């Protein structure tokens, strides 16, 4: 019986090659992308799940309130560590995490790598297994270091790294005490090396911080004791920082399970608003939609062909088949077809994956050896086949043999309306996706075109070091002498980041008890010139004024917050220091390009800088300029390899997620409309074939090609327009919701919907027309004689 079904299925496919191709190809593309999205979701949800203790790990977060804004942060003060260690027995282990980029030298090799300074518990809390060394003791000695396997190989080649020494930042000698497996891709915590936090206590800044409850710069992860409640501890530690600070500033600690870190890392008004999980939800829905569109094609083309299949149904019934057997037959047939499509889709995935490299799929692989993956894929395949085959099976098997064998069966109005409804559904999804894509890109462009308050082009950032700081003036002069460099400045943070946020400023007229926070940038001369910051009032720091070491620049947001009508010459206090306002600069977008600019202050300091800004002259040839800068920098900064970042590229990285979403959405929108058109193409081809005789008669009676074209295409165009009308409010609602997360956002414009609808109509019309015109041009005599 089964064999007979497969035979019929296979030959039916072979005899209707065109249709079979449309069916299978459409289904394969749909499945390929649904599978890709599935793999992506699997990857994204696998983050941080490889830790044995994953259920007992949590990150400490903090709700804060400054400038009347509610924020949620991960940075915590240093003294929190001892407090938690001492007084909270429900904590089994605890680690501070401080990350940074450091230079490592061993023999002739030098690298600049990202390291984490962590506590000795770290290697036992997390499942980052050591291939050499002992996890329990590797981080006990303050001068020890644990390398990842690939860094160990890079530094020492094939030699045993244990016990070897490394020079850190050209200054400190540390000894390798362990080698860890490379951090897996799906880890939120990433590092090239680990070093004991105890190492840091040699720095005054850290020593001083031991009593500072208001100095937030460390991340904390706790491991709960078995059987202790994370929720209870979260509640218990809530007031801890406030009790210690006693200054009335709202600071509420809480725990977030580590496993939620990757997907739920956004907070708004102290409430978790999701994060990546939103995209997972969105794309799961879209993935299902794409698959649905492909299934609809299958249903549509199968039922359209039903008049032919009807005869087979009649005969099979006449020779004794029961309806249930026919349903089984058609379902088996569609599962079989789906399986062929599935095999093709795996091929397509291999083809598509490289193209999706920059859309968030770079870490995603199809692992051919993964049995559970195959099992789940096969399940999806069978379910898809059953869904795609369900309607044709029920519909076809319901035919009454008497009618079909007599040839009186005409497709019912219901069947035809159902097909039209499916076409409308397909185009609703397609148009909706087009609208979403356009709006995502509009929003990205909106934020990119925003006035940044500085000029990111032709601007380099080079990480500072002790050497470079020492040799700063000589290095700067040498760079300027090359002729390629217009200006150089040293600064405490790159233009695309905020590293200091201070809250203890006061000024005349400040509302008593008001809790404020300012982003702080520390720099010396030439910062405004190098960054291209526009000064709206007053002046920048100048060598001409001796008093400038106590001068301060404020941005317009700060001016508004402070409230001075005439800010120049006014005083701002910080602890016992006094700063005189000498200028007001335009707001600089250093944080999110989608948010309003925070109040910022620029302080004069040449000891707290960590980055060098280098502005190239606009006429300079980039390659030549870099070749000129490299040896000079290496000369003054021998411990570090020459590395630099372009500020405009760094700014561009702020759009990473948005760009990925936009690209993915546009691919999916294109795909949706392509698969829909594939179905439409088959459907019109079929309709035209069925109506050959009618078209012939109409032609004989004098209908023009244009008349006939209208007759055959008009209906589909109407369907697409209906789809547009349904899609528009849905897409509007969806995108309105998406835009809510951005303070700095576009308002959705009507023309987007018109454009998407028009585009869909145009594409559909083109698809339908090729068939319609072909039918209209056919020789009527031939088609009539064929009767």
């Amino acid at each position, binding site marked *: *019986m089964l064999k*007979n079904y497969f*035979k*019929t299925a296979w*030959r*039916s496919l072979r*005899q209707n090659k065109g249709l079979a191709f449309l069916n299978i190809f459409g289904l394969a593309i749909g499945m390929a992308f649904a599978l890709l999205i599935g793999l992506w979701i699997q990857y994204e949800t696998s983050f941080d799940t490889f830790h044995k203790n994953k259920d007992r790990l949590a990150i400490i977060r903090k709700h804060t309130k400054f400038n009347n804004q509610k924020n949620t942060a991960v940075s915590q003060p240093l003294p929190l560590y001892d407090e938690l260690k001492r007084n909270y027995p429900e904590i089994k282990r605890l680690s501070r995490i401080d990350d940074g980029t450091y230079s490592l030298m061993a023999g002739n090799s030098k690298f600049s790598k990202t390291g984490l300074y962590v506590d000795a518990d770290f290697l036992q809390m997390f499942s980052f297994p050591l291939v050499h060394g002992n996890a329990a003791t590797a981080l006990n000695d303050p001068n020890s270091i644990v390398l990842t396997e690939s860094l160990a190989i890079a530094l020492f080649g094939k030699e045993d790294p244990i016990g070897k020494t490394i020079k850190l930042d050209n200054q400190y000698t540390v000894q390798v005490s362990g080698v860890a497996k490379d951090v897996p891709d799906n880890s939120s915590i990433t590092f090239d090396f680990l070093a004991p936090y105890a190492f840091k206590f040699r720095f005054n800044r850290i020593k001083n911080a031991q009593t500072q409850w208001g100095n937030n710069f460390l991340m904390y992860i706790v491991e709960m004791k078995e059987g202790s409640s994370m929720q209870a501890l979260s509640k218990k530690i809530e007031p801890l920082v406030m009790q210690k600070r006693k200054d009335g500033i709202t600071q509420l600690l809480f725990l977030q399970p580590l496993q939620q870190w990757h997907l739920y890392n956004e907070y708004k008004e102290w409430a978790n608003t999701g994060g990546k999980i939103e995209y997972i939800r969105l794309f799961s829905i879209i993935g299902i939609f794409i698959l649905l569109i492909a299934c609809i094609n299958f249903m549509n083309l199968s039922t359209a062909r039903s008049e032919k299949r009807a*005869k*087979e149904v*009649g*005969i*099979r*019934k*006449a*020779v*004794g*088949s*029961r*309806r249930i*057997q026919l349903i089984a037959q058609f379902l088996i047939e569609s599962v079989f077809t789906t399986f062929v499509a599935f095999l093709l889709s795996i091929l397509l995935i291999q083809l598509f994956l490289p193209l999706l490299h920059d859309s968030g799929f770079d870490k995603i692989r199809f692992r051919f050896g993964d049995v559970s993956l195959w099992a789940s894929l096969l399940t999806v395949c069978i379910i898809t086949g059953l869904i795609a085959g369900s309607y044709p099976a029920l519909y076809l098997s319901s035919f*009454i*043999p*008497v009618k079909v*064998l*007599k*040839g009186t069966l005409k497709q019912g109005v219901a069947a035809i309306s159902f097909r039209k409804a499916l076409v409308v559904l397909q185009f609703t999804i397609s148009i909706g996706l087009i609208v979403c894509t356009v709006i995502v890109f509009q929003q990205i462009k909106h934020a990119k075109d925003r006035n940044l308050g500085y000029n990111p082009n032709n601007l380099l950032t080079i990480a500072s070091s002790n050497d470079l700081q020492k040799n700063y003036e000589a290095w700067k002069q040498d760079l300027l002498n090359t002729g390629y460099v217009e200006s150089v400045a040293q600064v405490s943070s790159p233009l695309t980041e905020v590293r200091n946020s201070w809250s203890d400023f006061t000024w005349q007229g400040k509302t008593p008890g008001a809790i404020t926070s300012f982003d702080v940038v520390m720099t010396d001369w030439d910062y405004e010139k190098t960054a291209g910051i526009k000064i709206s009032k007053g002046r920048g720091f100048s060598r001409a004024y001796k008093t400038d070491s106590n001068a301060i620049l404020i941005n317009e947001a700060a001016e508004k917050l402070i409230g001075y009508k005439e800010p120049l010459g006014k005083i701002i206090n910080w602890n016992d220091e006094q700063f005189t306002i000498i200028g007001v600069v335009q707001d600089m977008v250093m944080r999110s390009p989608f948010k309003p600019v925070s109040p910022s202050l620029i302080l004069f300091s040449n000891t707290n800088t960590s980055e060098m800004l280098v502005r190239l002259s606009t006429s300079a040839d980039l390659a030549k300029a870099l070749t000129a800068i490299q040896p000079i920098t290496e000369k003054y900064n021998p411990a570090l390899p020459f590395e630099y970042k372009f500020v405009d590229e760094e700014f561009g990285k702020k759009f990473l997620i948005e760009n990925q979403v936009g690209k993915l959405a546009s691919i999916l929108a294109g795909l949706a409309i392509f698969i829909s058109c594939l179905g439409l193409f088959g459907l019109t081809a079929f309709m035209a074939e069925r109506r050959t005789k009618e078209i012939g008669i109409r032609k004989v009676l004098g209908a023009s090609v244009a008349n006939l074209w209208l007759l055959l295409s008009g209906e589909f165009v109407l369907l697409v327009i209906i789809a547009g009308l349904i899609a528009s409010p849905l897409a509007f609602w969806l995108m309105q919701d998406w835009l809510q997360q951005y303070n700095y956002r576009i308002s959705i414009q009507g023309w987007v919907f018109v454009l998407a609808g028009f585009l869909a109509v145009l594409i559909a019309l083109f698809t339908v027309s090729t068939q319609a015109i072909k039918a209209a041009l056919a020789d009527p005599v031939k088609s009539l004689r064929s009767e």
Partner: protein
Amino acid sequence: MIKIRDLEKIYRTEEVETVALNKISIDVKEGEFVAIMGPSGCGKSTLLNILGLLDDPDNGSFLFNNIEVAHFNERKRAELRKHNIGFVFQSFNLIDELTVFENVELPLIYTGVKSGERKKRVEEVLDKMQIMHRRNHYPQQLSGGQQQRVAVARAVVNNPKLILADEPTGNLDSSNGNEVMSLLTDLNEQGTTIIMVTHSEHDARYSHRIIRMLDGQTVLENIMV
């Protein structure tokens, strides 16, 4: 074998009500060869379809081998049909995707005959119908006469007690038509009951008895001698 009494079949569409069968009563004995004649639209096919359990009557009684089958459900009808009844249609009604052999094999598959046995029986009947040499061809590669021989082969492969033929020669020229008629006669002589709808007086002469219908009723019966 067949005993129908006051059988009614009414087709209702939105505008009209067609009485296809109007309280018709017919008896057919085992081994008989009955021809049904009448003008187009008088209800011949409707009758045949009800006899073949492809369609159910609105009223009346239908005894098949003394069992009332008028209101059998789908499952029971399929069961009865596949073991007892073979069909031959005017338009052959072969499945285009299956070969001659596979078309004929189909009823055996549905009655659950084992593969080896199926092969034997299909080959036997194809041999008898003299189309063995065409066993691996598809229907579209055959002439009308050959296709109808395949259809007859398919109708008899299960050794049904009853064969229903609706204008089996309607689409054939006279020599092919005669060939099909002699096949049916042979089957009848071997004991199969045959009920055949035809427009041809010539074909009707092969039967034992002619039932003439008009407007859903029998109007005359001729016993052939």
